[in-house]
């Protein structure tokens, strides 16, 4: 149904009854008046006819044409009279006269017209133009007191008068128009009144609805103006509305205050949390740096000690110390990693990674360990590129591989393979080790959880590897699955999305396993090489220097950037630079390299950055500057192989 406006409804409700009343009354009035007019005309005609009949009596009696003409003309002068005929008793027309202003009719042929229209029995005839009236002429009776029998009075003639209806019709139409105009006026007044009244209703309602829309838009300052012309109810509504708006405004102000308070509180809490987080990150950074520094030095010293120890007993002791330090280092790294992950200090940097290179790298790292334990480490070549953080993904894989190696008995086999699954790559780390029971499968990702395997005590880990894997997988948004049964080995599978566009990942520190294995026995290339070692920690500096000296290198030591500058001013040059990343006074290893580059006109020697900080900025800077980065504590073997590799490249 169409929606009808208030004004239309009010107009209809008011106007329709009024219209009915007015129109019916005026129709009645008009009908009455028209009948009156017709009647008046007839009566006037009858009167004239009677008068004429009376006065024509003598004229008819005497057949006096002049007389008849006189009275006929006199009668013709009366309003509305169009024509007159006077006949004698045998209906012969004695006189005929017509109004010269009216329709001219020929007198001769009118005889029949008069006769056919009216006679004694039908004295009145009406057509559209005229009213015809017949009046017999009967002689006036005059009493003579003669006691004689009165003869029947006889009709001696008749008068026929044609009354024109033209004026009557004119008056009728005039009256009709007048009535119609009056009706229009009568209707115009209530229409105007309705217009005013409905305006006093619809305007406030429109203002109200506009105000409601304003409020809906959130503008609570809206006030509906209440004018005096407004009806009481609408006035109440408007003032109620205003009250409501004001109330809403107040409530909103209160609410805003509360929200502001809560926001302030939240902000304070957030700042507090951020501060705490920052403190924690800072603590972790400091801790990782400060804890790794001595461990790093310790490792280097042990390597030195191992070389110098004589006798089986001493060698045994040194090996035991080395193993303890190694365990300590591994534990520390794992603990720091977990802490950093939990603290959210690690932010993944998703990029395109060459999965094949990454797998080769992992394999290289574990080749020695696996061979030591007589486990076959098999890598299926892979050409996929994936979208992930290369550092973190590699960490996941190394942890999985190390975990697999740990729980695989001698003569076992660990295999790494990739399978394409739609838009993802499923990286599987399989082993044929002891397997994991269904109950334990739920717990393996918990910290410090370890399968109880007495036979494997010797290579027991910390129980943090899978916990870190789990956290990293979640952080990267990848998925990890486990298929395993006790005694049948385990399959860990990580699903990583394939990178849409294949691009070479800029991974720092990828080393061919061949070169390393080759370098294990080759000391010769290091001998006599001039190396610059920069570290703000003297213990680390000395330990590094001692192991490098043991490898036959000439070592220049510097604890600060200014010291390096001094060397450079004495025109010293080196074959390789090994620098700590974080130096005193916010200087970095990169600054050292830059300085050397500025002073040396010849080609820049290869540089190795060593860092106790695994923060993303360091990694990124190293990657950008194109230098190799090693993490503290650096294993002497790793340092040596990298150094040899770099020196070979330069030669």
């Amino acid at each position, binding site marked *: 149904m169409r929606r009808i406006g208030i004004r239309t409804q009010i107009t209809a409700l008011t106007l329709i009854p009024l219209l009915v009343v007015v129109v019916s009354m005026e129709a009645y009035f008009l009908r009455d008046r028209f009948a009156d007019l017709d009647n008046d005309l007839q009566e006037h005609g009858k009167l004239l006819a009677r008068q004429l009949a009376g006065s024509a009596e003598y004229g008819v009696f005497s*057949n006096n044409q002049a007389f008849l003409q006189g009275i006929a003309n006199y009668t013709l002068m009366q309003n509305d009279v169009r024509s007159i005929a006077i006949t004698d008793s045998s209906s012969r027309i004695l006189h005929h006269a017509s109004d010269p202003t009216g329709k001219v009719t020929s007198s001769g042929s009118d005889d029949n017209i008069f006769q056919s229209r009216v006679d004694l029995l039908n004295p009145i005839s009406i057509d559209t133009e005229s009213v015809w009236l017949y009046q017999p002429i009967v002689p006036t009776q005059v009493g*003579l*007191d003669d*006691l004689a029998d009165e*003869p029947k009075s006889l009709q001696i003639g008749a008068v026929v008068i044609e009354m024109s209806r033209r004026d009557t019709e004119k008056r009728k139409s005039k009256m009709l128009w007048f009535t119609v105009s009056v009706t229009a006026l009568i209707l115009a007044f209530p229409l105007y009144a309705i217009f005013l009244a409905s305006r006093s209703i619809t305007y406030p309602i429109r203002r109200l609805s506009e105000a409601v829309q304003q409020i809906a838009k959130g503008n609570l300052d809206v006030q509906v103006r209440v004018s005096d012309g407004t009806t009481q109810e609408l006035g109440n509504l408007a003032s109620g509305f205003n009250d409501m708006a004001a109330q809403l405004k107040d409530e909103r102000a209160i609410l805003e205050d509360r929200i502001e308070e809560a926001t302030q509180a939240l902000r304070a809490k957030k700042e507090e949390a951020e501060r705490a987080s920052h403190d924690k990150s800072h603590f972790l950074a400091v801790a990782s740096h400060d804890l790794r520094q001595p461990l790093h030095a310790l490792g280097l010293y042990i390597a030195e000690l191992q070389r110098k120890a004589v006798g089986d007993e001493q060698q045994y002791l040194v090996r035991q110390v080395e193993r303890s330090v190694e365990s300590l280092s591994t534990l520390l790294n794992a603990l720091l990693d977990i802490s950093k992950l939990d603290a959210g200090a690690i932010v993944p940097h998703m990029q395109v990674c060459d999965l094949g290179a990454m797998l080769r790298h992992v394999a290289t790292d574990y080749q020695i360990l696996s061979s030591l334990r007589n486990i076959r480490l098999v890598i299926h070549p892979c050409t996929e590129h994936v979208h992930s953080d290369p550092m973190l993904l590699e960490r996941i894989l190394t942890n999985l591989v190390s975990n697999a190696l740990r729980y695989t008995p001698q003569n076992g086999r660990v295999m790494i393979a990739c399978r394409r699954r739609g838009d993802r790559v499923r990286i599987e780390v399989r082993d044929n080790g002891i397997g994991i029971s269904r109950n334990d499968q739920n717990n393996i990702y918990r910290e410090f959880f370890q399968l109880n395997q007495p036979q494997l005590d010797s290579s027991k880990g910390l129980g943090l590897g899978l916990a870190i894997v789990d956290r990293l997988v979640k952080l990267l948004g990848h998925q990890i699955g486990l298929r395993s049964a006790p005694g049948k080995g385990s399959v860990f599978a990580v699903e990583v999305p394939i990178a849409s566009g294949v691009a070479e990942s800029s991974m720092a520190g990828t080393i061919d396993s061949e070169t390393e294995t080759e370098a294990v026995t080759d000391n010769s290339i290091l001998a006599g090489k001039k190396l610059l070692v920069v570290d703000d920690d003297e213990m680390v500096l000395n330990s590094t220097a001692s192991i490098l000296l043991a490898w036959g290198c000439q070592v220049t030591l510097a604890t600060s950037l200014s010291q390096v500058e001094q060397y450079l001013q004495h025109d010293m040059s080196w074959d390789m630079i090994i620098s700590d990343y974080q130096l005193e006074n916010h200087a970095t290893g990169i600054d050292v390299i830059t300085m050397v580059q500025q002073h040396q006109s010849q080609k820049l020697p290869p540089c190795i950055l060593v860092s106790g900080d695994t923060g993303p900025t360091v990694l990124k800077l190293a990657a950008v500057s194109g230098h190799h980065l090693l993490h503290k504590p650096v294993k002497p073997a790793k340092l040596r192989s990298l150094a040899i590799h770099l020196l070979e490249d330069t030669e």
Partner: protein
Amino acid sequence: MTLLLGDSSAPYQAFTETLRQRLPASIRLSVREPNGSVGASDLVVAVGMKAAESAASDPRSPILAVMVPKSGYDSLFLGQKMPQGISAIYLDQPWERQVDFLYAVLPDVERVGLLYSPETRLEISPLLNSVANHGGSVVAQSVQSAERLFSSLERVLSGSDVLLAIPDSRIYNATSIRNILLTSYRHEVPLIGLSQGYVNAGALAAIFTLPEQIAEQTAKQIVAFEQRRGLAAPSYPEHFTISLNNQVARSLEIRLPSESDIRKRMRNTGGAER
């Protein structure tokens, strides 16, 4: 004594009233309407033509017809043998009196106009004589029908100084009198009428006898009949009344003499009555 009334109209009532007053108490009067049998009576007084006709149809008693025109009485009773006796007192005036009256009113009249119809039964000769005696002449014109009345009237009026009405209802009646008077007025010819009605309608003057006057005469006749047991011969009324229309006279520029002068002149010219 039976009084047979034509109807109960005013003239008859006046007549009856006057008659009762004039009659001695010994005479018993029984009033009847003319329909039905009259019955036997010493004397039947028939008032008006209808009563006269009724009485004539059952002639068992002597009849005295009063207030009848002479022509009517003649047509009813003339030539009939009425053993019980019959007499009348006419309504109309004798010609001589009429003519005397005419000349008393209009002494200079030479031509007296007269209209008559084929049915008119009047003895004209007394009139002609009377007029001739006064030195005038009569212009008579017959009226064939009501439609022809106007032309006859025109003709008679164009040749006369006065129109003398005669008691003939075919010519002079309530319907025609207005037109006759109008026409005569247009010809400036005065009309001498036959009753007060003529004067009222526009006649210059009229001479007639009132019912009361006839009643008085009738009472005398009845008393005489009681005494003599016989009826006198039919007679004209003894008394008469004169009516004049001064308005008409003024319109026609006629100087009317007074009534007493008229009566005096009538007496002088030899008219019999008072």
